[in-house]
């Protein structure tokens, strides 16, 4: 707001208002004359913003025309049409509804000035000081003209709107705020922005004429639509011409507040006229509404009265009805219904009755106060009629409740008795269920003595149980009688059940007596049978035990290794046979007991139950006895066969033992001898070899003795003889000793030969050989005749090899290991050690040396002939070479030429490529 009102007093030639005390603020209170806000900015605005000027021109023109049309004229160009002052005077007359001084006739400039001055004087006479000169209007100065028109609008269209002592502008604003307050999306704070979206205009229209537009369908999002809608409706229905341009209002950042105020003031005037008409109408409505209300109350009374009477008419027969369906449930339901009636149906009716009485009184008072005739309800709906009907209702109600409770008590008693009857019958029937079956059962006919005694005692208990139930049966009969008397509706069923129970009761007594006699008889017979069973059990068990033992003995396997043992067995068997006569007598005695018990059962019609004292069946007993009898002669024969076999076994044992006792010690002696030869090498290696070979010869000569022993051993094994106490030697021991002797002997000879060969081949003297042996033995700490890699490494270092304790040393050692242990066993034998040590000494012995040798034989030729070979080498070696040599194919080859170079390489597993 302050943007408009600032102090800038210099160089103005526009409209000046009479008081210039303002400094930018907008005072709360003005004197009536001070509604004009200082407008120094008028000129400035105009200079700065031609848009506002355009807006003002359009709006003010429209405003002027909205008044001028009442006198049948209009203006088109605001700065021209007021130039002569005539239309200006006309406008002032219309809006002020006063007569102005007659205008001067004439078209001269001074005439015009005079007329304009008359108009200006009129305005001034209304308490407005104008700073515009008549010349400026006559000259068609647009800015001055617009300023003058605004002064007129402010004075005549807006100044009247003073709400609560506010300034004109504030008043108009307040009016807008009050009228648009109910509209949530409208908030009028000023006259430039608040109206931009058009909703404020629409709200103002809707507030006064809701029939003209559907406000709920409008949104902020369509300001142009809203503005145009408001302008169209205002023009069409409120007779307010379009003074604003929707697009300009919407597009300008701030609309010119003067134009908006002008337009809004038109709304105010339009609505204030309709409001007067409305006030009159409302006064009329008030009077009519009193009458209408009274009529409504009368109708309501009539309606309520009819409704209440109708309800009473319907309820009364229900309360007077004393019919019963004889069931407790039905009666209880009826009582429930009655309680519901008392609790929820009657109370609203009671208040309805009270309301009727109150309403009636209220209505009569109102009629009296508004000077209208009293109300008389239609026939039968008087207050007194209603009160009588209500009394009747309550009377019927009382009788109904008494009767209901009486009926309920009677039915409860019947229900209780019937339930008691059912309950007792149920218990009794549950008890008696199956009793007849039990009493007629012949279960005791297949019982053991103990079971039978138990049954007898059980029956005794039952008899007293039966006696105890006499009372209950009598009670059941008595309840049935009372139900008959009280007229129970399902009495037929009760009587049938009662009769059935009484009949059953008589039958139970009868059957109990009969069973008692039968049980006593059975007990006596079963006691007799039991005695027989017991006797049987006493005898059968030890007898079967004996039979099982005997049978086991008779089929017992022979685990016999001596003649004495078999003789003992035969003697025992003879003793056993002597007892068989006694056993037979006992058998017959036992069988007799079974037969007798069986007969007693048959004679008395009892079922033959199994023997409770023994689970040995007589059939089983017989079978076992027969089995034993059959096994005896079989045993005789087996013993005889075994006796002969044992005699033969003994002969085989002695035969093996005699031989083994010779061979065993011989082998031991040989081993000792070999051991001595192995431990010490006495004399030369050749002498040693001779001794070993002599020994080998001797040993091989001894072979037939071993074979003979093997033959005896085979006999023994075939006869399944495992023990031989005649000799400490077994065949396995002899065999192992023999094999060890021969293999060891062979190996010793081979080793000695090898050493002799090595000595010869490497040309190592006896002395050096001994040194190698000593060295190897020194490092062979474990005496296994081989060195592990660690021992070998130490040995090599001792022999002068520079094998360092670092990675390079590891690499060197690995190379040597690969040489001496190509198969990667991880160990080095004396032979490979010797080979390695001596190979280092005779490095010349390789492919090249061999090739060189052949070359010499071949007379420097790259090939060799068969003749040359045969001439130079022993025939055996020559032929061996010829079998392996390939023909020579190189340069200068002749027929029959052989390639000694490839041959040499092949011998060493090498080839030149």
């Amino acid at each position, binding site marked *: 707001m302050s943007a408009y009102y600032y102090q800038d007093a210099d160089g103005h030639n526009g409209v000046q208002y009479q008081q210039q005390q303002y400094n930018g603020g907008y005072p709360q209170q003005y004197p009536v004359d001070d509604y004009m806000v200082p407008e120094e900015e008028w000129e400035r605005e105009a200079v700065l913003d031609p848009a506002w000027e355009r807006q003002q021109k359009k709006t003010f023109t429209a405003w002027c025309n909205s008044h001028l049309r009442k006198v049948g004229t209009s203006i088109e160009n605001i700065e021209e049409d007021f130039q002569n002052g005539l239309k200006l005077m006309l406008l002032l007359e219309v809006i002020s509804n006063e007569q102005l001084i007659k205008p001067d006739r004439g078209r001269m400039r001074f005439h015009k000035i005079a007329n304009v001055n008359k108009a200006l004087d009129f305005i001034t006479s209304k308490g407005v000081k104008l700073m515009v000169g008549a010349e400026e209007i006559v000259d068609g100065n647009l800015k001055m003209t617009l300023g003058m028109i605004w002064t007129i609008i402010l004075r005549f269209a807006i100044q009247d709107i003073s709400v609560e002592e506010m300034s004109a502008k504030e008043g108009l604003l307040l009016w807008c705020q009050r009228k648009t307050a109910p509209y949530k999306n409208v908030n009028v704070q000023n006259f430039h922005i608040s109206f931009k979206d058009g909703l404020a205009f629409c709200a103002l229209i809707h507030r006064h004429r809701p029939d003209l537009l559907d406000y709920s369908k409008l949104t902020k999002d369509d300001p142009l639509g809203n503005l145009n809608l408001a302008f169209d409706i205002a023009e069409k229905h409120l007779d307010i011409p379009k003074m604003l341009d929707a697009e300009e209002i919407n597009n300008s950042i701030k609309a010119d507040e003067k134009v908006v105020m002008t337009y809004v003031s038109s709304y105010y005037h339009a609505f204030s006229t309709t409001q007067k008409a409305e006030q009159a109408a409302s006064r009329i409505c008030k009077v009519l509404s009193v009458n209408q209300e009274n009529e409504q109350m009368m109708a309501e009374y009539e309606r309520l009265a009819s409704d209440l009477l109708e309800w009473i008419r319907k309820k009364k027969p229900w309360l007077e009805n004393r019919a019963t369906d004889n069931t407790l449930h039905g009666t209880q339901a009826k009582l429930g219904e009655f309680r519901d009636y008392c609790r929820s149906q009657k109370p609203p009716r009671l208040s309805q009755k009270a309301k009727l009485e109150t309403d009636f009184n209220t209505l009569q008072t109102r009629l009296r106060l508004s000077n209208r005739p009293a109300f008389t309800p239609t026939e039968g709906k008087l207050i007194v009629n209603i009160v009588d009907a209500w009394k009747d209702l309550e009377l019927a109600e009382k009788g109904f409740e008494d009767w209901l409770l009486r009926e309920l008590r009677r039915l409860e008693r019947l229900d209780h008795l019937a339930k008691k009857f059912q309950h007792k019958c149920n218990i009794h029937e549950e008890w008696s269920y199956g009793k007849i079956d039990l009493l007629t059962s012949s279960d005791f006919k297949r019982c053991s003595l103990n079971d039978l005694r138990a049954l007898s005692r059980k029956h005794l208990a039952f008899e007293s149980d039966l006696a105890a139930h006499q009372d209950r049966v009598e009670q059941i009969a008595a309840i049935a009688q009372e139900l008959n008397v009280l007229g129970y509706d399902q009495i037929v069923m009760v009587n049938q059940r009662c009769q059935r129970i009484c009949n059953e009761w008589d039958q139970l007594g009868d059957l109990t007596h009969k069973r008692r006699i039968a049980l006593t008889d059975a007990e006596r017979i079963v006691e007799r049978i039991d005695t027989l069973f017991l006797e049987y059990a006493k005898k059968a068990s030890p007898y079967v035990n004996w039979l099982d033992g005997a049978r086991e003995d008779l089929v017992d396997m022979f685990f016999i290794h001596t003649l004495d043992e078999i003789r003992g067995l035969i003697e025992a068997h003879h003793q056993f046979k002597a007892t068989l006569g006694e056993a037979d007598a006992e058998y017959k005695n036992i069988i007799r007991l079974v037969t007798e018990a069986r007969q007693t059962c048959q004679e008395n019609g009892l079922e033959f139950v199994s023997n409770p004292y023994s689970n040995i069946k007589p059939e089983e007993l017989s079978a076992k006895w027969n089995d034993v009898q059959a096994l005896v002669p079989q045993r005789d024969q087996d013993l005889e066969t075994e006796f002969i076999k044992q005699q033969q076994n003994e002969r085989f044992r002695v035969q093996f033992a005699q031989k083994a006792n010779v061979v065993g010690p011989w082998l031991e002696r040989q*081993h000792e001898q070999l051991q001595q030869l192995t431990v010490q090498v006495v004399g030369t290696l050749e002498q040693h070899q001779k001794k070993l070979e002599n020994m080998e010869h001797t040993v091989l000569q001894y072979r037939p003795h071993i074979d003979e022993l093997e033959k005896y051993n085979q006999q023994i094994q075939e006869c399944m003889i495992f023990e031989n106490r005649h000799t400490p030697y077994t065949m396995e021991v002899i065999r*192992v000793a023999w094999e060890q002797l021969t293999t060891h002997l062979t190996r010793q000879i081979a080793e000695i030969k090898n050493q002799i060969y090595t000595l010869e081949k490497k040309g190592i003297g006896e002395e050096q050989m001994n040194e190698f042996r000593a060295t190897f033995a020194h490092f062979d700490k474990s005496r*296994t005749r081989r060195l592990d890699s660690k021992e070998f490494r130490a040995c090599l270092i*001792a*022999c002068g090899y520079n094998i360092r304790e670092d*990675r390079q040393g590891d690499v060197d050692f*690995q190379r040597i290991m*690969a*040489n001496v242990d190509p198969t990667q066993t991880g160990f080095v034998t004396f032979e490979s050690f010797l080979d390695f040590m001596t190979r280092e000494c005779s490095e010349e012995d390789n492919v090249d040396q061999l090739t060189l040798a052949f070359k010499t034989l071949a007379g420097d030729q790259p090939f060799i002939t068969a003749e040359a070979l045969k001439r130079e080498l022993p025939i055996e070696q020559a032929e061996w070479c010829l079998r392996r040599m390939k023909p020579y194919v190189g340069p200068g080859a002749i027929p029959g030429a052989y390639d000694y170079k490839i041959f040499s390489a092949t011998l060493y597993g090498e*080839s030149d490529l």
Partner: protein
Amino acid sequence: MDNSLFPTVPVFLDRSSLDQSWGFRLQGGIDYRLPLSIKKVSPNTPSHNKLYAGDGVTAIDGQDASSMKHEDAENLLRNALQIQLAVRRGQFAAVRPSRPPVKFGASSQPHVNSALQNTTTPNNYRRF
């Protein structure tokens, strides 16, 4: 044998004709129970400065050489103009003594050969 001490090296050889010699001597083969290895290398041949005496051959033309017969290896090499080998450099290079060996009681008991003391003889038959 700890092979990690001898890194595997790829060696590519080629020659102009089958008549030209490769220039190395091959030793061993599964039939000789010796690993295939390079025995010696002749100067100014395709193998010169590529193979070295003592190289262990682990593969020939991508085939594993550890179970190859000498003859098979030989044929592969003879009939090729180009050959791809994998060798363990220096695996079988010879090591020689650097100083005279220490003597171990050489003359103390020349006639009692303790190295021949036979402790490998099974003697369990003595139990009877």
